[in-house]
């Protein structure tokens, strides 16, 4: 289920594979660590109503119900995340989407080339919902960590072996 997190203390909320979190608590930092082919999708409300983060694992649900893993499939994760930030008052037209991850981790054909498909599916679902992607750090061969600072809507990415970079 979408977790509404509203504490005042500075807290790092880890969003693991298949999970979603939304928050309007200024002290919260939403983080997905070690995104490979997975996508970290951040939604940030320009009116400071809420931020959300989904850790998307696969492109399509194919009708499967992920139940307690609303972030697992791109086609379910985007509506679930929109609903989550919507509960906190953020409308699609006021949202910036930031897309991180979708790497091809391994050289050679391993049957694990789902990063690009994940990114395409997330972008398609966002377009359908009328949400604009304002920044992205995707593709390539490197793992990434995304952080969403709820206080000011800053979104950062860190690639393996590099410094943290601000995307928004």
């Amino acid at each position: 289920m979408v977790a509404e997190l509203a504490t005042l203390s500075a807290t790092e909320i880890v969003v693991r594979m298949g999970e979603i979190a939304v928050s309007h608590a200024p002290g919260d930092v939403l983080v997905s660590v070690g995104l490979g082919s997975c996508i970290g999708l951040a939604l940030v409300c320009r009116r400071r109503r809420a931020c959300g983060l989904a850790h998307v694992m696969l492109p399509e649900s194919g009708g499967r119900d992920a139940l307690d893993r609303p972030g697992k499939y791109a086609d379910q994760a985007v509506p679930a995340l929109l609903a989550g930030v919507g509960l906190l008052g953020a409308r699609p037209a006021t949202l910036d989407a930031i897309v991180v991850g979708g790497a091809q981790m391994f050289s050679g054909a391993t049957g694990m080339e789902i990063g690009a498909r994940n990114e395409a599916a997330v972008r398609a679902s966002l377009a359908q919902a009328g949400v604009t992607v304002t920044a992205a750090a995707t593709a390539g061969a490197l793992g990434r960590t995304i952080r969403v600072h709820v206080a000011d809507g800053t979104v950062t990415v860190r690639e393996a072996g590099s410094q943290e970079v601000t995307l928004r």
Partner: protein
Amino acid sequence: MASARYSDLQLDALRELANVGSGTAGTALSSLLGRPVDISVPNAAALDLADAVDAAGAAEDVVWAVVVSVGGDLEATALLVVSERDAEAIGALLGVDPDTDDGRSALEEVGNILVASYVGALGSMTGFVLDLRPPASAHDMLGAVVATVIAARSDGRDVAIMLDSELRIERDAIALSFMLLPTLEGVDELLGLGG
């Protein structure tokens, strides 16, 4: 509970298979590097996918990983993970630097030999005909590597079966972590439920 589908008895049976597999892999590593190799008692666990990623270790640690897909009568993915320091130490024993192309292929070959030994032992025990695809490697965040393998192999399921063992070369303080992630159909085959 993610493990409800598998009994302790079944997980014990998988652990025993992993034990023989990693023992054989340890022998191969020992003759490859000319060093005695110690093998830990393997773990076998049925884990929620996100828990399986956590169980592999600190997600942001940058590691060397070699991945080999196993096909034939059993679909599985084998993953060999070493820290950067240990990759350098193994490279030194083989006379290569992991950050060069030669070093990278040497690490892939080490992975390939270990997986071939492990899977060969599984094949002898079960009578399965198994084949290996060429190895691929990554020098990257541990969590990104493991999550990618698990995502690609999850086939819509919420549970991953992970058999993991550690191979240690005490003299050089090198540790290699070996994980086998069979598909759930593969697990049923191993447990003799596949018919």
